[in-house]
């Protein structure tokens, strides 16, 4: 019974996030445009882009291989898996595959690798550069990401994310404990780096010295580009959803009911869009850090994560 309920929740999350992710990007861009005094293209523009790109003939480099076709699909599927497994609308774990922290990170890494290989495939200097920088950042983010969530997992005594969220829901004192705050800061920095946001990467740049993500997708077009973009958007939405559920777990569904699903969907939508607005406002005041300053930022965040874990063992 819980199995069937979990599958329904996973389906709801999938449909919701495929719909929501482009909208989130639209909101982020629109808020930014308004703050910068531009009119902006409206919150539905990403959706229009998807429709437009799907109706175009993809152009592929003569020397590129099947990777240029398979890589984007892999990235998209890995992001879809994230949406299905993470506790976003409800905390019911799927049978046999709970939302285990290490599994989630590995699924994310599959997407990271697919994107990096796509960047290398066309055989241009730009793609290689983006791919190289992207992988360097990914390699340095991983310890931070794991340690931060490890710290959060200690009060719950499990590495299953849905149980962590549930623990925080039942025992809100955990959320504002110093250990949890340290870990949340570390996690937020790691997620910003992982999803190519400022100050690690500038999502709206086309200057070669500042590009990470954009450099890798330069050679992709048509539906290849759609899969890459949609995959990245879904990843951002899912990780923001996780972050918001860790900070404000209220509204998430723990026992299956139709009302619960509706409340859960509403709650996560509001939380993500709000977090998106916060992100957008924050980014207006941030400049992209120089690439070789990024390791310092991540080292700082790593130190926070390590402090959080050891503190929760030795102090608590």
């Amino acid at each position, binding site marked *: 019974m819980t199995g069937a309920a979990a599958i329904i929740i996973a389906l709801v999350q999938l449909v919701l996030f495929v719909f929501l992710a482009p909208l989130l990007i639209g909101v982020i861009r629109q808020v930014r445009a308004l703050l910068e005094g531009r009119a902006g293209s409206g919150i539905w523009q990403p959706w229009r882009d998807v429709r437009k790109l799907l109706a175009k003939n993809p152009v592929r480099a003569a020397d590129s291989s099947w990777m240029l076709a398979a890589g984007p*699909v892999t990235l998209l599927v890995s992001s879809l898996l994230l949406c299905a497994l993470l506790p976003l609308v409800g905390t019911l774990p799927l049978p046999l595959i709970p939302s285990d922290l290490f599994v989630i990170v590995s699924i994310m890494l599959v997407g990271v690798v697919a994107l990096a290989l796509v960047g290398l495939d066309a055989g241009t200097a730009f793609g290689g550069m983006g791919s190289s920088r992207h992988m360097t950042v990914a390699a340095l983010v991983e310890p931070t990401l794991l340690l931060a969530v490890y710290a959060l997992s200690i009060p719950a005594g499990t590495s299953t994310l849905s149980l962590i969220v549930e623990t925080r829901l039942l025992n809100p004192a955990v959320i504002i404990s110093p250990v949890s705050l340290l870990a949340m800061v570390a996690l937020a920095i790691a997620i910003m780096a992982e999803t190519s946001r400022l100050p690690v990467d500038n999502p709206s740049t086309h200057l070669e010295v500042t590009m990470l993500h954009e450099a890798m997708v330069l050679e992709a077009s048509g539906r290849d580009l759609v899969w890459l973009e949609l995959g990245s958007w879904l990843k951002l939405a899912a990780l923001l959803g996780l972050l918001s559920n860790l900070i404000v777990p209220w509204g998430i569904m723990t026992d299956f009911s139709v009302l619960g699903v509706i409340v859960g969907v509403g709650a996560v939508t509001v939380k993500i869009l709000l977090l998106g607005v916060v992100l957008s406002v924050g980014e207006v005041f941030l400049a992209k850090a120089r690439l070789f300053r990024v390791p310092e930022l991540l080292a700082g965040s790593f130190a926070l994560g390590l402090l959080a874990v050891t503190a929760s063992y030795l102090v608590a």
Partner: protein
Amino acid sequence: MTALEAGLLGQTLLLVVAIAAALLTPTSWRSRVSGFFCTLLAVAGVVTGAIALSGGTGSLSIPTALPMDPLVLSPDRLGGLVMVVVSVVGVLASLFGIGSARVASASRTSWLSMAVFLSGMQLVPAATDVVSFLLFLEIMTLGSTALLLAHHATRGTVASALVWYSAMSQLSFFFVLAGFAMLAGLAGGTGFADLATIDPFTWQASVAFLLLLLGFGGKAELVPLHVWVPRVLPEAPGHVAAAMSGAMVNIGVYGALLVVVRLLPNGPAWWGVLIMVLGGVSALYGILQASVASNLKVLLAYSTTENMGLVFLGLGASVLLRADNAAAAADAALVAALLLMLSHSAFKSTLFLGAGAVARAAGEMNLDRLGGLGSRMPWTAAAFGGAAMGAAALPVTSGFVAEWMLLQALIHGSRVDGEVVSVAASVAMPLAVAVIALTAGLALLTFVKAYGIAFLARPRSRKAALADEVPVIMRIPLVVGALLVVGLGLLPGPLAVAIGSAVGPAFTPDVRTIGLAGLDARGIDAVLDPTTFIVLAGLLLAPVLITLFISARRHPTRTSPLPWAGGGSRLRPRMQYTATSYAEPLVRVFDDVLRPTRDVEVTHVGESRYLVERVHVEQTVSDVVETRLYRPVLNLMQRFGILARRAQNGSIHRYLSYSFVALLSVLIVVSL
């Protein structure tokens, strides 16, 4: 005669046959015949190991002329497991050798030492006493040395690499010998059963443990005894490198397991911490060097150090947690260490075989001059890609399952029933998680680089552009190896159960199969079912593919020689990113550890210094351990050698006076 005895006897007989085949067959047939018998020898090892693993008993005793007990071969379950692993790698390497061995590697010496090397590896885990263990260990080492020696005529660098290899392998042998001697002295016997009665909490046991750890660490290519690895493995042909890096290192792991599981179980906590430090340092150092290496085989060689580091990290965590009474997590860490060993054997042998195939096809190991091999060598590319996924621990390969299990054991290790087990564990476990995470991240970069630069994009040299796929006999082991990497990842449950029974009866990990072949580690409350993942990913892939096909029918793909190319119009493949440039950000981030030396030389055009004719960039990354630890020692020895040379000037008068002084001093000493 039991099945196990028959198997051991068969292995011995096949060794004799393989040696005879290597000696007697003519050159034109030698690779085929010898390769066939080496394969048979390895298959016999697989069968014997499988019998031992499934609980078969029996023993083969070899009488010796020396005044001591006969050598008794009788592998237990753990020995059986290791025997299966090294023999499977042996099968793949021998098959590959049939196709790839040419000139020097098809010589009599080469095939003879291959057979000796293989059977040495297979019989070390069968030993039941110190003497036979050391004997087979040395046979294995000598076999591999002779195997490499066969190539000394082809390249000048082989000789110096071999000196390093002999020196380092004999150094580790010395440590192992000293450690065992100490234990045997304590126990008053050389049988492993006698040794197991020693109390690990005596200082003698600790000294022996340190010696054995160093010795077996050296065999497993751990820092700081790894210096021979990046020199020797690039010189070895693909199948030899695969056997050394995929199988021989496991003997080091087996030795360490023998110490901490069989001979001195339940040792003090600081042993665990020490093993963890050794493993953690090796893992990080190995992967850092691998990530900046441009030579494919050097990259793979350093990655072996990394993986063995992770294995030892798991082993150390298991010792530490056991000392802290967190038995469930300790057993899980032990299973994880063995899973890592297994998966490493599968992917590393495949990767080295892949490198061998590339070397044969393109005659080039420098990634900076490879590229675009994916379209010319599809089989090799697919196998290498699959194995690289395993090495990068991506789901759902065996590497991923092993690393997942290790991480689970670590995060569940520091607390039992909500109570912190010890201060050491609560500092060591988070640090270990961080080390594994950083290692995994860098491994990802390393293997994206290795696969992406070599097999994707455009060829960076003429040789790479003219590469051709290797013959079928070489493709078979490649594909089988890659299938093993993925297959073992899909069956973590049965695998963990087998490992659990192998480390018994002293240790009883609480693992069982769940779902189709998933892993349920009940002791640490963790579940993983890769099959369900594949099914879920397939279900999610379906709508994407449907959309893709609809879109593709209406809007077919166009191919253009230059879709965007960074806005430029220059098509030259030299403008692509190379392996060196790929790792450049990393070199900058970790320049304190890697200490790169960079030399940029700009030649200006005669008329103006604003115009550049050409730029020559050279970058070398040194091995800090070698330059800081070994160089001073070697320099000292060299200085001593120069001094010693003065005493030996060839004059007969001087030698006569030496003998006179020597005789005189002997007489004086005797008369005292």
